[in-house]
């Protein structure tokens, strides 16, 4: 999951990035409205967190422009001024949710999870696919009754797959959502991680859930008999 955070407060922006990164999200942090708009248009973000008072272009304007250019990702507003007018303006500009500063990071995390869920068919914090269960709050995973421990990248990849069940996810899509774009040899690395995931998920001979679609990518799918 790649998240764009536009926040000009140096300490707060860095804190949000750190907190979200600790939850295995990939975070791009910008401090200017123009940068937020440029990145928001260029990258398929899962979620955008916008501060309303941004230098250059205001958060509201960034949101309006993104919606004008048919960008549909959820947008969460951060407002220092918690007035009704501001919140209404934010939601009317195309925002999906707002959070008044100061806020508790746990609430931010929960709202981020809620907005990410909204995009997927799953509506709770616990993702399920067949006998595979993923708790997005605690990053715990189970196959049936068996608890599985994942490294952070393995978890991020599995979560991405679980949010998009039965969809074919290309290596490029996976790369953009899980890794920083400056990492090379991504197709090999993704291959290794898929292998890791399969090994862990099928450690006790369970059927394979991650299918390789030759030339296109990977798919979380019911095992073929």
């Amino acid at each position, binding site marked *: 999951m790649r998240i764009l955070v536009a926040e000009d407060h140096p300490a707060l922006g860095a804190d949000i990035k750190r907190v979200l990164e600790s939850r295995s999200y990939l975070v791009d942090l910008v401090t200017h409205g123009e940068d937020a708009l440029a990145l928001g248009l260029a990258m398929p973000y899962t979620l955008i967190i916008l501060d309303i008072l941004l230098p250059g272009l205001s958060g509201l304007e960034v949101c309006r422009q993104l919606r004008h250019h048919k960008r549909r990702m959820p947008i969460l507003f951060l407002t220092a001024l918690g007035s009704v007018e501001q919140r209404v303006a934010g939601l009317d500009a195309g925002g999906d949710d707002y959070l008044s500063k100061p806020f508790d990071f746990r609430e931010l995390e929960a709202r981020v999870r809620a907005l990410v869920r909204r995009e997927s068919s799953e509506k709770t914090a616990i993702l399920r696919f067949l006998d595979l269960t993923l708790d997005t709050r605690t990053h715990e995973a189970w196959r049936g009754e068996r608890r599985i421990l994942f*490294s952070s990248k393995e978890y991020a990849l599995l979560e991405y797959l679980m949010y998009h069940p039965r969809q074919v996810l290309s290596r490029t899509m996976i790369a953009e959502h899980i890794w920083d774009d400056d990492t090379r040899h991504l197709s090999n690395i993704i291959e290794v991680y898929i292998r890791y995931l399969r090994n862990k998920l099928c450690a006790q001979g369970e059927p394979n859930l991650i299918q390789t679609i030759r030339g296109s990518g990977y798919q979380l799918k019911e095992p073929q008999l």
Partner: protein
Amino acid sequence: MKGVHRLYPLGIRLQLMLWYSAICTVLMLVAGTLFYTRFQTRLASSLDTALQLQAQQIAGDITEERGVLTFHDATADLPGFDLTDRRIHVPPADVNLGILVRVLAGDGTPVRTTPAFDQLQVPQESVRQPLSGLPWQGDVTSGEGQLVRLYSRALTQDNQIIGVVQVGTSLTQMESVLQEVVSELLLIAPVILLVGALVSYWLASRAFLPIDRLIWAARVIKEGDLHQRVPVPKAQDEVRALALTLNDMIDSLERAFQRQRRFVADASHELRTPVAVIRSKAEMALLQLVSPEDYSSLLAMIHQEAERLGHLISDLLTLSRADEGKLQLEREVIRFDHLVQAIAATTEPLATECQVTVQVQADELVMVRGDETRLMQVVLNLLENALLYTNEGGQVQVVVQAREHQAVLIVRDTGIGIAPQQLPQLFERFYRVDPARTFRYTNSSNSGLGLSIVKWIVKAHGGDVKVESQVGQGSTFTVTLPLLMET
């Protein structure tokens, strides 16, 4: 610490001046106090000596005959020094001028008293103590509130105490002398302090003269002429050390600039090649001079070059972020043997393409702490290099083992090898062993940055990477990482 910031930070000269002045003030205060107390005790002791002498003189003048004290010549010139009971009581005009003498008989009754003495509030102790043999000395106040130093001693004759003689003198004069001294000191001190401050300011300015010269010299050296150096003074002092340090700094700056310039030049050269290919192929396609079936091969070439361009840019980004210190490494526990096995498995297609056999020895449990993706990059880069620089039918051996406190990865190939003179530069950016880039370059995505990235990642994990090579025999890359002990 922000709140403690002074509103106007003082310049170093002013600071030095203030420090000098403060120290000077303290020293002068100490010296003044010492001088004053010494002077006071001197004055007091000379006064005491004079009193004792006077008392001795008077005592020597008195004798006892049949219980009556007899006075001789020496006391005759003391005005008003008469028998107490015979005297007409006239209050003295001025205690200061008054002579303070009193003689008491052996039973403590006054025999003779000067008029001024009557004004004194004399304690009983001053009579009782001399009568028991010990002289008494102390300060008493006169009726007008002035301090008087009083000295009492016994009168003796044939080792018998026959009476007491008391002599006093006013302390007013001594006090006024002391006051004068204090006021003179207080008058001179500010002048000395002011002169001291000015001199210290001048001295500080003088001391900074060589530094000013350094500043001017350093100012002349601008970005463009980094080959210049500041003059180094001959004297072995701080300024020389500063000049040497500055020169060292300019030196490393110059080298950094050179590296940067070369890096930019190399990077733009590397970027230009794929762009040129893409442009020419695209132009060919646009001119419609090719048959429809050739379009796909043109597009494939464009795609390949675009991919290489993308890889190059990724590598450049990685390195520039690493230089900035912006890349954060995760610190996860990793089964390094599994990682190497998995990576080796993914390079099978390339190995088959190159017709090189890959042999992996990773049966030992080797755990390290680090960034999984970055370590995968290390293994991939080394393995890919080994495959690309090995002739068909060659062999690549990958070994993972734990050695004491180190996790060791060895990638050994039977490839073309590297000449000894090229080894030192091998990990430099854009360094290529084959400048002509003939060897399998066409199917390679090698950017010339791979080994630089390997070195950076390994160093960032607290490890090291070494290479041994013989031309025609092959190369061996050895990566060592801190081993994670099982707890």
